[in-house]
Each structure stands twice: as structure tokens, then as C-alpha cells.
């Protein structure tokens, strides 16, 4: 790879600290603790997939960064990152980091990044990550690219190409940050698969000393939390999804989809139109402004297959579409399509699956 041109500090905005890209090296993934599951969050592990890929292309190593207040939990999380491909993990624990406040964490992450100067920093674009990452980027006056679906390396310059689908997921924009480091990128949950877990993998755990960092006084105080009742698996974790669109039309229609989902041991989701019609809550919306899912089997019923919808099913293994319009775009995004009235087909499908389970037992 060719050497980069030096940045001329005179040409830089005086509000930015002048640094040279050549001072930076290595790929970092900022991990997030899933407080309810008490472990590292799945989306954090998924970010190790593009991190490992970029690191191998650049010939550098992958490092994890974890912040929090529970030492044991963080150490367990660090091991998980190592089992999934991180070469080492840095941890900062402090009682002052309880509870999680985005601004406080962002300011400390910025200090740690500024100290060790990785060339790339990845964050999972979970709800918390989407709040955290841009503050870190801004503190460092670094470029940040949101919700990427691919990452690559520009072979000539060594710049990372951050590839994202703006404009309602119709387009794909290749974004790079040629003169500024670190290059910060995020990806939504389930856009990348998690790397395979190998519990024999070894890696270093490095404990950061909290005294070396300025931990800011929180200006935000958590006063109350109320957990929502949840009997079901959230759609982003489900293996089987029956998803309904405007074609299903009614709540009663969605009841039928529920019956099908239950037979499969899965959950019901929907398109944005289904959400707009009040047929399904927004937290079960699949797509660009909803969630990406990674089901083994995704059955799209009465969904036309708009770009903003199908961007959410890229990681599904098998996609089935049921639609009465043979020209519906969803058929181009499906492995198996049935043309016809959804009600007739779903009725038959429920019958057939019932018989199948009866035979098996």
C-alpha cells in the first residue's frame, strides 16, 4: 500500500486537533454489555466479522474495548470477544460508570481512543450504540458512517470503504475518510453474522487504570426504569418469522399468521404498512426503519417487497413469499414463491404443518 500524503495542519479546521493518519493503527470494536442477559451483546460480537475482515486485509490486529462497572461480567464479555476473533480486549471499570449514561461513556471512550490511536473504530448500531457513537466521533472530530452493510479496503490508499444504503435503501453509498483518523463506522444488528465461536482461542486482556482518565460528572440521572412485559422472543432473535403486510389487511388475518408462527415455534412480524395500519406494533417492523432479522425461515405474506423492507431480511437463510401479484418485487427477493391468495395458501400451510407434526410424533 502506498504511503499517505501528510495532512497540512494549516488547512485543517482549527477546532480539530491536527494528527496524521500514519499515527494510527489497528481495528477496534467497542463492545456493549447486554444488561438483561448479563453478557456481551450479540450485535457487538457481530461487529467482529467486518473487523476481522478489514484487519486481515490491512494486516493488523483486532482489539475490543469494554467499559462498565461489573468487573467479573466485563471479563466474561472480554473472553467472548476473544473467542469470536478479537486478539485482545481492553477493559475500563469504575464505580463511576454506573449506571450507563451515553455522554459519560462517550467521553471516556474518546479519551481511550485518543490515547491508543486505532485507525478504525466500529460500534454496533443498536439503539444505545446509535446514541453513543456520534458523540465519540464528534469529540474526536472524526468522520463517522452510520448503518453500514459492507466494509472494504481501498487497496491503493488503505482507507476503509464504509458502504451504506441511504435514501431509503435504494442506493448504496461508498464513503471514506481519507485524511482523518480514526475512521468510525457502525452497522445495525443482524446485518453481519456472528463469527464462529472458538473457546480455545487465546487473547490478552488489558486493564485500563481509571485514574488515567477524566470521568466527567454526569449531567443526566436515571430516575426510573420500567421493563416491558415480554413473553415472546424479539423478532431480531427469532429463527422462524411469519411476516405480514398490507395484503393481509386485518387483525383477524394477523391472528392466522400467529397460528402459523406458533406451529413453527416462531414469531409474527410485519411491514411498515402493517404497522401504519395498526396491525402490528412498531418493534416488530422489519426493514430500514424497523429491524433487520436473521431467521432460518422468513415467510413474507402479502408484502410487496419494497427496498426498505427487503434490506431487513438480507441475513435470513431461506425466504418464502406469498403474494397474489406474480409481478410483486418480493418474488425476486425470495427463494420460494407462491402466487395466490394468502388466505388460501396459509390455510393449507397450517393444515400441512399440523399433519407433519402429527406424523412425527
Amino acid at each position, binding site marked *: 500500500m502506498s504511503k499517505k500524503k501528510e495532512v497540512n495542519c494549516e488547512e485543517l479546521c482549527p477546532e480539530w486537533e491536527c494528527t496524521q493518519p500514519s499515527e494510527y493503527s489497528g481495528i477496534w470494536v467497542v463492545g456493549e454489555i447486554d444488561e438483561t442477559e448479563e453478557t456481551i451483546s450479540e450485535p457487538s460480537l457481530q461487529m467482529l466479522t467486518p473487523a476481522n475482515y478489514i484487519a486481515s486485509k490491512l494486516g493488523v490486529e483486532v482489539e475490543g474495548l469494554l467499559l462498565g462497572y461489573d468487573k467479573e461480567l466485563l471479563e466474561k464479555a472480554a473472553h467472548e470477544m476473544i473467542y469470536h476473533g478479537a486478539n485482545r480486549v481492553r477493559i475500563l471499570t469504575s464505580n463511576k460508570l454506573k449506571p450507563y449514561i451515553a455522554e459519560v461513556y462517550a467521553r471516556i471512550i474518546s479519551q481511550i481512543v485518543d490515547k491508543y490511536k486505532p485507525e478504525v473504530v466500529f460500534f454496533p448500531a443498536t*439503539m444505545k450504540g446509535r446514541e453513543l457513537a456520534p458523540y465519540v466521533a464528534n469529540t474526536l472530530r472524526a468522520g*463517522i458512517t452510520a448503518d453500514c452493510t459492507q466494509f472494504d479496503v481501498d487497496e491503493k490508499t488503505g482507507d476503509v470503504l464504509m458502504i451504506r444504503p441511504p435514501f431509503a435503501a435504494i442506493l448504496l453509498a461508498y464513503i471514506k475518510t481519507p485524511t482523518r483518523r480514526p475512521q468510525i463506522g457502525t452497522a445495525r444488528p443482524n446485518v453481519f453474522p456472528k463469527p464462529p465461536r472458538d473457546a480455545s482461542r487465546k487473547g490478552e486482556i488489558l486493564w485500563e487504570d481509571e485514574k488515567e482518565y477524566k470521568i466527567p460528572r454526569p449531567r443526566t440521572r436515571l430516575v426510573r426504569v420500567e421493563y416491558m412485559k415480554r413473553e415472546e422472543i424479539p423478532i431480531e432473535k427469532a429463527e422462524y418469522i411469519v411476516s405480514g403486510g398490507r395484503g393481509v389487511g386485518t387483525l383477524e388475518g394477523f391472528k392466522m399468521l400467529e397460528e402459523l408462527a406458533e406451529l413453527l415455534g416462531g414469531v409474527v412480524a410485519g411491514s411498515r404498512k402493517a404497522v401504519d395500519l395498526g396491525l402490528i406494533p412498531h418493534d416488530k417492523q422489519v426493514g430500514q426503519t424497523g429491524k433487520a432479522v436473521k431467521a432460518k425461515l422468513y415467510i413474507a405474506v402479502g408484502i410487496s417487497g419494497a427496498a426498505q423492507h427487503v434490506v431487513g431480511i438480507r441475513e435470513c437463510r431461506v425466504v418464502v413469499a406469498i403474494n397474489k401479484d406474480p409481478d410483486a418485487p418480493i418474488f425476486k427477493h425470495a*427463494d420460494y414463491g407462491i402466487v395466490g391468495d394468502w388466505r*388460501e395458501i396459509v390455510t393449507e400451510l397450517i393444515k400441512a404443518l399440523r399433519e407433519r407434526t402429527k406424523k412425527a410424533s
Partner: protein
Amino acid sequence: MKRPRIVVGIKWVPNTQAVRFDPKTGTLIREGVPSIVNPHDLDAIELALKTREKYGGEIIVVTMAPPGAEEGLRHVIGMGVDRAILVSDRVFAGSDTLATSYTLAKTIERIGRVDLVFFGQETIDSSTAHIPAQVASWLDLPYIYYVESIEKLELKENKVVVKRKLEDRYEWYEVELPVVIGVAMHSNPPRPISLTNKLRAVTEKPIEVWTNKQLGLDPRCIGLRGSPTIVSKVTWQPEIPRKRKIYQGNPKEAVKWLIKHLEEEKVLP
């Protein structure tokens, strides 16, 4: 009594819903695609209006955009906001989110005392959700995303209690003022515009236009030069390869066909 001064940031965006793709030519049909106020920003305007109803004060809307965005500002004036500022100058063209947030932060500074800064959670065109956090960072203010409601505003104590919704929980936070707030999508559906307000929007409220003459920002910090990210290429979203096998005919036979394939794929429970 002290009344809150609320700034709301909005963006004038192409109506991506109306954009169509022409599969024959492989191009985006943008002709006749109108621009609109980013729909998620209307939730922020609505929350500002509710807050003003309860606590009084003033709502100032800000957008950085080409002159055409004036139409969007008229729309929100019609909803009932008090002032509208259009930050418009060719030197701001090509801004990424770092440069955009810098320009917006400097605009807010110039407005003077501000207690609450509201944004929509994200836009429908580039949808980064960066701007609220970045504006907070430039202004050194606390910030919080996904807020659905203002539970209590205590200007004298300099604090506000907000409620927000994450995937699996509601959270209440007490935050020091001033604060930057990302208003959750679909949380505050905008009210219809009354006829009187519509008239006022056309006749009364002047839109202030601020160029870089007023703001006086260093050209190295704005527009393309102030933007570390570069869009180097734009293509169509490639499709994930799928088998695309299609069955058309008797529903019973169709289901048989499907189950056979799903069994071969080993994806049935």
C-alpha cells in the same frame, strides 16, 4: 416567570416514498419527486408545541438548507412555531454530519439563551441519527435519544425529566438544562394545521435568512472542507442472490411443493 426557549432542528428532504426505481433503465425516477419536511421532525415540532402549551415560551425552528426549504419552514410556521431561521449559503454545501452539526451548533449559539434543543430522531434520506449527539458535543451539552415525552420541566431548578423508550424498557431521566433531545419516531403525531395558522404562515411570520456573513464561520470548518467523510461512489443496492423458484396454481399443490423444498433445505422445525 422564566419561560422556556425551544429550538427545533428540521431538514428539508426529498420524499423518498415517492422515488421510484425503473427496472428497465436501472435508474431512479426522481422527476416530480417533491421535497417535504422530514416526517420524523414533525414529532419534534409537536412535542415542542405541547411543551409550549404547558410552560409557555418560544419555539424557534432552524434548518440549514438551500433556499427552497423556505416552503418547509412555512409549513411548520403553519403548525404554530414562533420563529424560523433558514441557514443558507453556498459555502455550506457538501457538509457531512460533522460540518452540518458544527454549523447548526454555531447557529444555536447565535440565537442566545436556549433551554431545550429538539431534533427528530433521524431523517428519511440519509438517516444517520448523528446530528443530535454531534450538536450536543459541539455545544458541550448533555443529550438524550428516543424521548417520547417531557414529564416535568423545572426551569428554576435548571432541570427536566424526560421519558424514553428502548427495545425492552421505558426509562425516566432527569437532565440538566440546556439539553439536546432526539424525539422518538412516531411518538408525537403532528396536529393538523388550522386555517388561521395557515393564513398566518403566509402573511405574517417572516423567515430570517442567515448566511455565513452573519455566522462568520471559518471556511475550513464548514461545507466540504469541514467534512472528514467523502461519498466516493454511489451505486444501486445489489440484491442478495435468492433461488427465485415460483409456483403458481392450486394452493394445496403449492404448499406440498413448498414443504418438499423446505425439507430439502432443512429449515423446518
